C-alpha cells in the first residue's frame, strides 16, 4: 500500500493518541521500523497488521478508527495542505460532493502511483445524495465518511451521513444536506499557501 496512506495513519495515531501509542502498535505489528516513508510503497499486509493492532490497542472497531482518520485528514492543522486540495473541488459543499467523481483522477495527477478507488455521486434530489465507493481499498469508505463530515464543517453545511459498512455488495454512503449555510465555515483563500 502506498506510503502516503500508511503515513496518514501514523500521523493520525501520533497526533491523537501520542507517540508512545504508535510505538506500541508498530512493535505489536512487528514492523521492524517505526516511521513510514510517505513516498515509498509497502506490502498491503503491513498496513493490515497495523490496523489490526491499532484496533486491539485502542479497543475500538476498525471502521470507527478509519472514520476518525478521515476527520483528522481534513480538520487537523497538520493536514492543512490536504484540506486546501479538497477545497479546490468547489465553492460549495454540493460542488465539493460532485468533485468527488474526479477525486481519484485528481490524486493520480499529483502522485501518479497513488491509486484510490473510484467514487461516484448520485444526486437523488437537491438535498439527497448517494456516494458509491468502488472496492479495492479496505476501509476507504469509512475514511470517506470522516472526510465528508469534516468537509461539511469546513463549508459550514449541516449534513446527515449514513454508512452501512462494507459487508454489502455495494458500498454506499447516504448524504442528506439539511442546510447548506448552517454555520460560517472556514475561510478558503485561493492564493494562500499551506505551511
Amino acid at each position, binding site marked *: 500500500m502506498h506510503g*502516503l496512506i500508511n503515513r496518514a495513519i501514523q500521523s493520525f495515531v501520533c497526533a491523537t493518541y501520542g507517540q508512545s501509542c504508535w510505538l506500541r502498535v508498530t512493535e505489536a505489528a512487528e514492523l521492524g521500523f517505526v516511521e513510514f*516513508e*510517505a*513516498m*515509498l510503497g509497502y506490502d498491503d499486509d503491513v498496513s493490515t497488521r497495523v490496523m489490526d493492532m491499532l484496533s486491539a490497542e485502542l479497543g475500538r472497531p476498525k471502521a470507527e478508527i478509519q472514520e476518525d482518520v478521515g476527520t483528522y485528514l481534513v480538520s487537523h492543522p497538520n493536514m492543512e*495542505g*490536504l484540506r*486546501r*486540495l479538497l477545497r*479546490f473541488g*468547489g*465553492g460549495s459543499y454540493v460542488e465539493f460532493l460532485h468533485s468527488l467523481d474526479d477525486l481519484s483522477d*485528481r490524486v493520480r*495527477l*499529483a*502522485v501518479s502511483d497513488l491509486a484510490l478507488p473510484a467514487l461516484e455521486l448520485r444526486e437523488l434530489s437537491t438535498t439527497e445524495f448517494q456516494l458509491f465507493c468502488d472496492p479495492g481499498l479496505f476501509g476507504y469508505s469509512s475514511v470517506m465518511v470522516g472526510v465528508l463530515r469534516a468537509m461539511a464543517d469546513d463549508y459550514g453545511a449541516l449534513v446527515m451521513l449514513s454508512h452501512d459498512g462494507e459487508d454489502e455488495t455495494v458500498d454506499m454512503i447516504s448524504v442528506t444536506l439539511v442546510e447548506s449555510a448552517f454555520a460560517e465555515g472556514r475561510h478558503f*483563500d*485561493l*492564493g*494562500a*499557501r*499551506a505551511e
Partner: protein
Amino acid sequence: MMNTQDLGGLLDTLCPMFLLVDEKGHIRQAGSTLQKLRPDVPLVGTDFLDVFELIRPRTVTTIPALMSMAGAKLHLKFHDEPRTALKGLVAPLPGGEGAVINLSFGISILDAVRDYALTSADFSGTDLAIELLYLVEAKSAAMEASRSLNLRLQGAMLAAEEQAYTDTLTGLKNRRAMDHMLGHLISSNSSFALMHLDLDFFKSVNDRLGHAAGDFVLQQAARIMVEETRGDDTVARVGGDEFVIIFKGLTREEILTSVADRLILRLNEPMVFQQQTCYVSASIGTAVSTQFGAPNAEELLHAADLALYQAKRDGRSCHRLYSRLSKAQP
C-alpha cells in the same frame, strides 16, 4: 444585431477578463474579473493604451496597429503597480467598430490570485485556472514529501559512510578501521608490530600526470601491500599517500625488516598508466608493541612516525626500526 450592452453581458459570462474597445481604443465595457484587478479605477472610459503597455510585439504602439493584430498572441502589462503580466487576444468587431480584447493571466496566475484575492467565482466555469492552482499545490506537496525523503536518505548515506571501515579508492581498511583494530589489540594485550609507510614522490605524480594517474598508483601500491602481507594483517590507508600495516603476533624485527625491504623493492618498480611511467618509492618506519610496557595507540603511532621520519632523513626508499633510533626509549 446585438447591442453593446448585451454583448458585454454575454462576454462577461464566457470570459470575465474581456475588454470591449471602440475604434479609437476607448474602453466601453470591461469584464468583472478584469475590473477587480483595478478596483479604484473604473476601466470603462479610459484608453486601452493608457492602462496597458504592450511588451510583445513592441512595435504596436497605436490603436490601428493593435487592430491589425487580430488573432495574434499579445503580451501586456499594466502601466501601474502591481504590473501583472497578461496575455491577450484581439478580435476586431465587424465594420471597424472596435474590437473585443480578451485577457488572461498565463503563468502570472499564481501571484495574481494572491495579489488580487481572486476566488473560483472570478474564473469562468470552463477556465482551467482552478485546476492549475490545484496542480501546483498538489505537486508542491508531493515534491516536498519526496525532497524530505531524499534528505533523510542522504543523511543515512552519510551516516553509513561515517561508519564504514573501507577506503573506497583502494579497497584497503581506512583510518577508522585501523584505530578500531589498534584499540582491540591493545585492550586484549596482544603483541604486534606497526609499520607506517609513506609513498615518496607521490605528489609529483599527481601534479605531473593528474589525479587519475595518482589514483592508479595508490591502487597498485595497495595491491602490492596486500600481496606482501598475510591475510590477517591489517593494511590501512590513513591519509593521501600514507599507509599503516599492523602485523598481529609478529614482533621479530628481522622478519619485519625483510617484509619492509620487499615492499620497498616492489614499490620502487615503475608503474605504467596510459603509456606514462610513474615513479614512486616508499619510506617505512616500524615500531613493535613489546617495546612498550603498557602501549597505547597514540604512543605506538608516534614511535612508527619517528622511525618513518628517520627513513626520510636518510634519503628515502628505506626502512628504519624505532628500536634502533638513538632517541628510542627502551
